[in-house]
């Protein structure tokens, strides 16, 4: 029971949050956080558990978003149906891709995934007649309030994390980790390595596609450069998992929280602290600094990742014992 205590407390807290918090800004950040829980966890099942690093998860995210958007634009199908289909289409994109790459070992999958993401971005940009090209797709959001979106995102996050946890603790999960640890040994134990790598990719692509479709519904506007962005999605998915803890169930959740908070702190210049200081003291240094910080968030990510890799190579969750020992001075041995 103790194992589920922290997740349950977190769930109760997240479920009750909109009753207490009315700030739209804050709810928006929480929705982003929940989307990143889904994307980070999806990336993690493929890369963290199965050992197949993907540099192209934006492909699945974007395809999910475009599925919802295009169904609405061309067939006037509610984008909520599109959400159900977004995951399926991402899964279908993943199938041939995995079938081509997974018989190979090593860096091929990682390289090909990078090409997949960038390739699909160019295709959506060029196929203007179908996708609207750089004009993007705009739909009217169903709800004006952010609360319904918040709960849908929360549901999606819970379903994805819970399903991934269930898979990891059963036969496919053991097979994924075996493949990560040693493919030859895995094959000698009766594991069809190509098949199970594809299964892992399919699960990963499905949930990422769902997140993309929800993004379309929520934001109401997408274009190829937004949803197929290499650094905003493909790389960010990797950072979320690395910071939180690769190959741990709750790592990406923690990572998503840290990364969204971190991004927001930089974007707003420490929530307007420097701007305020600049006005209060009349000194131009703070105003300049405030501007510089807006620009510096990529640098900040870089430094954060270096710090994590140096001091917490298994991420915040993976190295939690180490953090307890060294930061909070809790020593279980007494």
């Amino acid at each position, binding site marked *: 029971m103790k194992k589920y205590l922290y997740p349950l407390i977190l769930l109760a807290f997240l479920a009750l949050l909109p009753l207490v918090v009315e700030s739209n800004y804050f709810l928006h950040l929480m929705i982003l956080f929940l989307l990143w829980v889904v994307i980070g966890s999806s990336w993690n099942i493929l890369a963290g558990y199965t050992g197949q690093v993907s540099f192209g998860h934006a492909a699945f995210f974007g395809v999910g978003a475009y599925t919802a958007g295009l169904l609405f634009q061309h067939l006037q199908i509610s984008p909520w149906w599109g959400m159900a289909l977004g995951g399926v289409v991402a899964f279908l994109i993943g199938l041939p891709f995995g079938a081509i790459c997974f018989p190979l070992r090593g860096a091929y999958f990682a390289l090909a995934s990078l090409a997949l993401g960038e390739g699909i971005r160019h295709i959506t940009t060029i196929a203007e007649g179908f996708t609207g090209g750089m004009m993007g797709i705009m739909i009217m959001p169903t709800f004006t309030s952010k609360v319904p979106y918040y709960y849908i995102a929360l549901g999606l996050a819970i379903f994805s994390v819970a399903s991934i946890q269930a898979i990891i*603790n*059963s*036969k496919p999960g*053991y*097979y994924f*980790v*075996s493949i990560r*640890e*040693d493919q*030859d*040994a*895995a*094959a*000698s*134990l*009766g*594991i*069809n*390595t190509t098949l199970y790598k594809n299964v892992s990719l399919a699960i990963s692509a499905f949930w990422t596609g769902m997140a993309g479709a929800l993004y379309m519904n929520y934001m109401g506007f997408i274009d190829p450069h937004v949803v197929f962005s290499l650094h905003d999605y493909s790389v960010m998915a990797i950072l979320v998992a690395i910071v939180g803890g690769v*190959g741990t169930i709750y790592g990406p959740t923690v990572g998503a929280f840290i990364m969204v908070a971190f991004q927001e702190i930089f974007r707003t210049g420490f929530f307007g602290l420097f701007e305020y200081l600049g006005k209060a003291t009349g000194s131009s240094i703070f105003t300049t600094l405030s501007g510089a910080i807006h620009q510096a968030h990529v640098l900040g990510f870089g430094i954060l990742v270096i710090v994590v890799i140096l001091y917490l190579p298994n991420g915040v969750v993976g190295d939690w014992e180490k953090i307890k020992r060294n930061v909070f001075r809790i020593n279980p041995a007494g």
Partner: protein
Amino acid sequence: MAHFRVEKLVKKFGGLTAVNDVTFDVEKGEIFGLIGPNGSGKTTTFNMISGVYPPTSGKVIYRDREIQGMKSHRICHLGVGRTFQVVKPLGRMTVLDNVIAAAFSRVNTMTEARGAALRTLEFCGLSPVREVLAKSLPIAGRKRLEIARAMATRPELLLLDETAAGLNPTELVEAIELIRKIRENGTTIIIIEHIMHVIMTISDRIHAINFGQTIAEGTPMEVAANQAVIEAYLGTDYA
């Protein structure tokens, strides 16, 4: 028809012929030794049997079925298990999880796999270290884990590739005991071994190869007295 047979097996890597026209039969319940100096093609033969790569030509026949060229995981499901000479523990998994992963080749639920894995660990004497990470096991433990993992796939034919190498005298005795116990369980064994004491004590028959070619086959006594075998191991000066 023999339980297991390799027929005119050949493997060429570019210009190098690693295994050249090797043929042998293994009867059910037998411990069959495969010996030869370093680089003579023993592990290459195992790799062809277990599907790591297909033979250039020749057949591998197991229970009246040609299995050459099949994928490793299919051969495992047919009942051929193997260990690796260079041990391949699933490092960041516990010993128990290593064996559970293997047990899943025969069952689908966690409860069954865990039960089977615990029994296999008990059988192989690894129960005390089951919660240890595989990468932190010493060499004797890793060799034993190789055997336990292969056993958890419930093989009828087990290929043991130098499972006694690197063990101290006490561990050697334990390893021989374990191999005998596996045979008493009804598993047929083909074993590659460099330690003559081990191979001579436990094998029913031995097949000797050198430079990929068969040089002798027979009982341990016959093979040990064979001129070609002595030459291969000690050089012509001592033969």
